[in-house]
């Protein structure tokens, strides 16, 4: 599948977002997310990449421009077609792992039998099938993030939005979760938009990297990452990977210069 030929799943057209306190988070943002691609939004803090993600999710409304879903017949929200993973695991501490993962299904009143089956299947997909009855506090940071990903996947979303999900994890855990995420993406063929401030993470994961600049938040440039999937540890140490990372770093440096530094 060549991402560039795929249909547009969601299009942001001249989107602006100004917060009530006057901060301009985004201005004139044009961004197409194509069906099936793994898109990384890369940029310094304050470039509005998280805001862009929340706009796509419909968690906040643009002050200018529009977010359009060309192919969607129904509203995308409240149908479980959008999955969202926050930087923190954001689990309900009072509920077991299973109950946390079941939340999206329960909120839309899915029958109990299907809920149980899908929760079990999704937990197995993230490698936590034995931890359904555990409470979040009993799990490590990496496992909590897996629960969070399972909760986002349980509705079989068309698009998975991830807001720096692995930023707070140690490197070993992060690499493992990167690999597992790539594998899930290839199996499920869902679309992923992944916000990160790590050049290395964006190049390793994404089929396309959009580099954003700050003040005001906007798209600075984009790079197609043509390295074939599946990508693994060999790719991480290859000279190809190093070369792409260098190009991406240069682009990011340009974006930071354009945004008036860090």
């Amino acid at each position: 599948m060549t991402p560039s030929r795929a249909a547009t799943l969601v299009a942001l057209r001249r989107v602006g977002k100004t917060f009530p306190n006057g901060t301009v988070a985004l201005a004139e943002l044009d961004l197409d997310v194509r069906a099936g691609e793994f898109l990384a939004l890369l940029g310094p803090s304050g470039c509005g990449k998280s805001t862009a993600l929340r706009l796509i999710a419909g968690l906040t409304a643009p002050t200018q421009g529009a977010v359009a879903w060309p192919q969607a017949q129904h509203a995308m929200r409240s149908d479980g077609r959008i999955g969202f993973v926050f930087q923190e695991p954001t689990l309900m501490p009072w509920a077991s792992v299973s109950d946390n993962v079941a939340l999206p299904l329960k909120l839309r009143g899915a029958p109990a039998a299907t809920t149980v089956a899908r929760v079990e299947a999704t937990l197995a997909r993230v490698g936590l099938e034995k931890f359904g009855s555990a409470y979040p506090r009993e799990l490590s940071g990496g496992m909590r993030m897996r629960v969070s990903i399972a909760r986002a996947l349980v509705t079989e979303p068309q698009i998975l939005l991830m807001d720096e999900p692995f930023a707070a994890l140690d490197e070993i855990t992060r690499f493992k979760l990167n690999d597992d995420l790539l594998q899930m993406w290839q199996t499920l063929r869902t679309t992923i938009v992944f916000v990160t401030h790590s050049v290395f993470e964006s190049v390793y994961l994404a089929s396309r990297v959009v580099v954003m600049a700050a003040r005001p938040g906007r798209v600075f440039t984009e790079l197609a990452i043509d390295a074939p999937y599946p990508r693994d540890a060999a790719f991480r140490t290859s000279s190809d990977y190093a070369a792409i990372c260098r190009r991406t770093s240069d682009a990011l440096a340009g974006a930071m210069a354009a945004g008036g530094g860090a």
Partner: protein
Amino acid sequence: MTDRMLRIVLPIAVLVLGLAIWEAVVRLENIPPYVLPAPGAILQTLIADRILLLRSLGVTLTTTVEGFLLATVGGVGLAILFNQSRLVEYSLYPYAVILQVTPIVAVAPLLLIYLPQQAAVLVCAWIVAFFPVLANTTLGLNSVDRNLAALFSLYGASRRQVLWRLELPSALPYILGGLRIAGGLSLIGAVVAEIAAGSAGAGSGLAYRIAESGYRLNIPRMFAALLLLSVAGIVIFYLLSLVNHLALRHWHESALEAEK
């Protein structure tokens, strides 16, 4: 000796020492019981008057429990109502504060004029106890994790689902904290009202016994009644702490064993 044992042994040692000194001073100085009764004499009175005192304890505890339950229902209910409607909150909150800040000792005699005695005592217990429940529940309902709230919105949760599945569980530790304060306060409210009623010449609760014994210079019975009130307060506090622990032990930081 472990830290845990010290926590139990040391207070008991202080108690025994204090009682021994008290008993010794009363005996050596020949202090009459209407000035200061010895611990032994108080214990004797407690046993001799047990039927009267326990019946009075029952009356006071019934008022306390009823006041506490009404405070729980009223405090949590009002907080949910405030949470659902800003207009209701703006309209009623100042009056909740007024109820809280007006000294109950001053309000009790007035209530006794307008209400039947039992009802007046109950209203006093309720007024004192309900505000911490209201304030804590309100704080808890407003302390929901923003990202979890965003998630509920993303999945199209209804107002009711947000309340039951997100806001009330988030608020539970705060509510239980409020209840722990309210338990002791409703006992205080009941006692204040009974004393006020007692001075008006009616009542049969434990606080009334204290007032009555005071007029009759039956000081040992005053101490015995006071002891029972104190024990009742301690039991209420630990019962509510137990409920708190059982409800939160799986997940809330406050109920977790310290990691060693």
